[in-house]
């Protein structure tokens, strides 16, 4: 911990009591060489107490999870290395809400509450059904979906549980502990898969190499979403996830040219085929009424999301920060109707509306409103908060927040299937990266729509789809350089070793100082070493 005179940190009593000011000296709070707080962030009396309450609640939720069946859960911890990452969840939350105050803190906490509650549910759903920990009555009634495949069709099979199996076991790991992603990447490489592939599927495959997927259910739905790499990982995980061919596997495919009218029939056909497959496997008829009800509930959350977009676009009441907003949308996208998201989304919208009524500016120190484009990082997702706390760049909307927001017309079966097919084709990391260059170039209309003067372009060095259009983007950026400030933000999605967070920050620092000639809001965050952090 670095010592800084109290007076320097809080020039007035009011600023201390409110924890307010353009500079939070967040960097002072990190344990040397890490991004781990040595003491909690001071957000003023009320907000610190509010945040502390939620922090305790997170631990309580985790405790309640452990209490469900301590022996089984302990065995799961013993068996699955990835599970230990969840012990760092409270730290992840701290990273995700760094700098949050007032309304934004509240909205983000509600969003996190949905995600944490649901994660706890899913972890338990997996563990209680896992054959490796002992067969139970849930084992046969739980269905595994690939993590990039939304589970909406399961709404038509009430009484069946489903999980996106590689979401909790793989995707989320570097969000909590960055080293965890690297570990599983190395496992994939050890069986001959080239290291220069996208690191997300490499992590997924690494978990399979280690035989660390829970063994649940009797069938599995895989997908070509969102990209070539994620499609191919299904092939190499076949043995593990099908239990050497003992479980049925269905490829739930979506068209790549998803908004080309000629491909619509394929999208619908594949939804029907997937439903048929689940019917065959479960021996149950698809329940259209339950499906419609579930979809209506999804629609409600989508409507709320769309209302929030209007607020983002037209006001400074940006109720959710860049990280929470992105993950809340992506997470919900996969889950379909879900009590936690439905509950929290409604609350968040209420808070937003209150903020608008009162004219609350949640980004008072913003110098730039930014759209965050392309696939973002996991191990360095908190960089979106850092952009604001360090440089006053407020992320207004993420590319991946803008997916899966089509309302499903539930009027009749055909319209419902057609719209659900659209939903399935428009996944995060896909809507804007496949189906033609015009999708990636929607960045400009999006920036205009959300009233942004800046584009922060993620540069995932493993993403082949984005590498392929680099020159196109560069040229279009030059064409739009009078209209937008454009900054690249490099990362390697799941592998912090390839592009360490400090290197990504340096790219922004250089741009802000040399191109825009600006000074940081919080100089303690400009350059710091977090290599040994999580």
């Amino acid at each position, binding site marked *: 911990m670095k010592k800084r005179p109290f007076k320097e940190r809080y020039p007035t009593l009011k600023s201390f009591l409110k924890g307010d000011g353009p500079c939070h000296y967040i960097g002072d709070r990190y344990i040397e060489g890490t991004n781990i707080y040595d003491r909690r962030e001071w957000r003023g009396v009320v907000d610190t107490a509010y945040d502390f309450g939620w922090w305790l609640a997170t631990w309580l939720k985790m405790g309640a999870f452990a209490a469900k069946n301590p022996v089984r859960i302990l065995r799961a911890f013993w068996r699955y290395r990835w599970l230990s990452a969840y012990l760092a969840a409270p730290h992840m939350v701290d990273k995700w809400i760094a700098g949050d105050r007032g309304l934004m803190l509240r909205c983000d906490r509600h969003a996190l509450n949905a995600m944490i509650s649901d994660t706890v549910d899913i972890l338990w759903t997996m563990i209680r059904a896992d054959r490796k920990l002992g067969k139970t009555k849930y084992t046969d009634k739980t269905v595994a979906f690939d993590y990039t495949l939304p589970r909406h069709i399961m709404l038509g099979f009430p009484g069946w549980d489903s999980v996106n199996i590689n979401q909790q076991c793989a995707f989320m790991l570097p969000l909590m502990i960055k080293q965890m992603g690297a570990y599983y990447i190395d496992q994939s490489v050890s069986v001959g898969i080239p290291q220069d592939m996208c690191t997300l599927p490499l992590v997924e495959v690494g978990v399979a190499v280690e035989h660390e997927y829970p063994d649940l259910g009797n069938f599995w739905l895989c997908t070509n979403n969102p990209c*070539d790499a994620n499609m191919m990982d299904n092939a*190499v995980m076949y043995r593990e996830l099908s239990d050497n061919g003992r479980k049925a596997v269905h490829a739930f495919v979506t068209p790549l040219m998803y908004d080309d009218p*000629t491909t619509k029939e394929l999208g619908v056909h594949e939804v029907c085929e997937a439903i048929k497959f689940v019917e065959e496997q479960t021996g149950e008829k698809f329940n259209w009424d339950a499906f419609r009800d579930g979809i209506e509930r999804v629609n409600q959350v989508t409507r709320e999301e769309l209302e929030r977009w209007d607020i983002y676009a037209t006001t400074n009441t940006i109720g959710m920060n860049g990280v929470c907003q992105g993950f809340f949308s992506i997470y919900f996208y996969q889950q379909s109707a879900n009590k936690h998201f439905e509950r929290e989304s409604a609350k968040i919208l209420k808070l937003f509306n209150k903020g608008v009524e009162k004219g609350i500016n949640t980004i008072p120190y913003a110098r730039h409103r930014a759209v965050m484009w392309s696939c973002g990082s996991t191990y360095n997702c908190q960089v979106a908060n850092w952009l604001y706390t360090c440089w006053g760049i407020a992320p207004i909307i993420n590319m991946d927040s803008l997916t899966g927001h089509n309302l499903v017309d539930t009027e009749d079966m055909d319209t419902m299937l057609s719209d659900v097919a659209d939903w399935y084709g428009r996944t995060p990391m896909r809507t804007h990266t496949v189906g033609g260059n015009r999708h990636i170039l929607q960045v400009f209309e999006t920036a205009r729509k959300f009233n942004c003067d800046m584009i922060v372009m993620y540069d995932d060095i493993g993403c082949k789809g984005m590498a392929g259009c680099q020159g196109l983007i560069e040229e279009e950026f030059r064409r739009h350089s009078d209209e937008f400030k454009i900054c690249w933000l490099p990362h390697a999605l799941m592998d912090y070793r390839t592009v360490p967070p400090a290197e990504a920050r340096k790219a922004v620092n250089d741009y802000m100082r040399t191109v825009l000639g600006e000074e940081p809001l919080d100089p303690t965050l400009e350059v710091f070493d977090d290599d040994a952090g999580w």
Partner: protein
Amino acid sequence: MRDLKHMIEFEELLRSANNEMVKAACAEGRLALAYNCSHIPEVLLDVPGCFGVRLRAPGCVSPDMATYYMTNRSCPYSKSILERAFEGGYNFIAALLGQECCTTMNRMEQYFDYCELIPNEKFFVSCLDMPINRSEWHEGYYERQLRQKVVEPLERVYGVDFSDAALTAAIEQHNELCRVINAMGELRKAENPVITGYEFAVMQLCSLTCPKDKLLPLLRETLEELKTREPEPKPWFRARVMVVGSEIDDPEFTKMLEMAGAIVVADRYCFGTMPGREEIEVGEGETPLHAIARNYLWNNHCPRAMGPQALIERKNYVYQKAKEFGAEGLIVESMKFCEYWGYERAQDAMWLTEGYEVPGTLPVCQIERDYTTAAAGQLRTRFQAFVESLEIKRIQGAI
């Protein structure tokens, strides 16, 4: 063995995409229709008045412009094609029929449009969405995609005739080509073949990149020549191998492998004959377009086909072809940065060496390569070592 009469001419044809035969066909007013991927049925582009050209970029070693557009982290095959387009190497083409198949290739194809690379006002790029799953329904979908993305645009822009009669003629020509090429390919099964893997690769590459009607007379003649060709008194090679993997449009790759002591007896790679040289049968009551779609849907063993059935089938396809052609080992290659083959290569090696879901085991040598054989030294050493290991296995009676 005595040199084949037309070999130098064939090699000459591979020196440039715009070779003498292509030039002659264009001079006759025929349309050169370009494509890049095995998912685009070449036969559809060989209707009267047109001819298909699978794009290659011979000799492209430093794709600088393409690297600016696609970074140094994209597949070098796609980049080399783009580079050659920037150099004006494909100025003769009338249209590019692409697909959203592998994203890298698709990006490359979109640059033809974005950068206006072809100086022809009527030039266009049209991409289709290939099915990933396979069933009777998907045959129909594929057929409709072909109609909407290939047939209709070409009819509209150039007035190309895709009548059943035109398609039937194209299928007949395709089938004849397949018969000739396959007859040559069969010769590789012999213990001491009268054709080398290199010679075969050269002719197969010509068949993908030249107007077929112009090439066929030479191929027919070569087949006759092969029938009476005397083999070497003793096999000149030390091991028989099959090559499996992504785009290999450089016959030097095969030559290098053969100089290392192996003969390539089977070619299961993009630009190879397995698959690709299957005759198309038009069923009773079936339209020629449907027959084409059906054929290309089921005879494609690309790693992008999903589901256990396709997965297991394609491993068995490799295994069976290796056995049929007497390959003792597999060279499984992938282009650098290729996601399809990066994964497939690793999995092929695991499954085939272990004998998982295939009837037996096969030794595998995995390699990652660039577009040209520039890193030849390193590869040669790998190949030599693999050939030696196959020899040792043979001596020990393991294969």
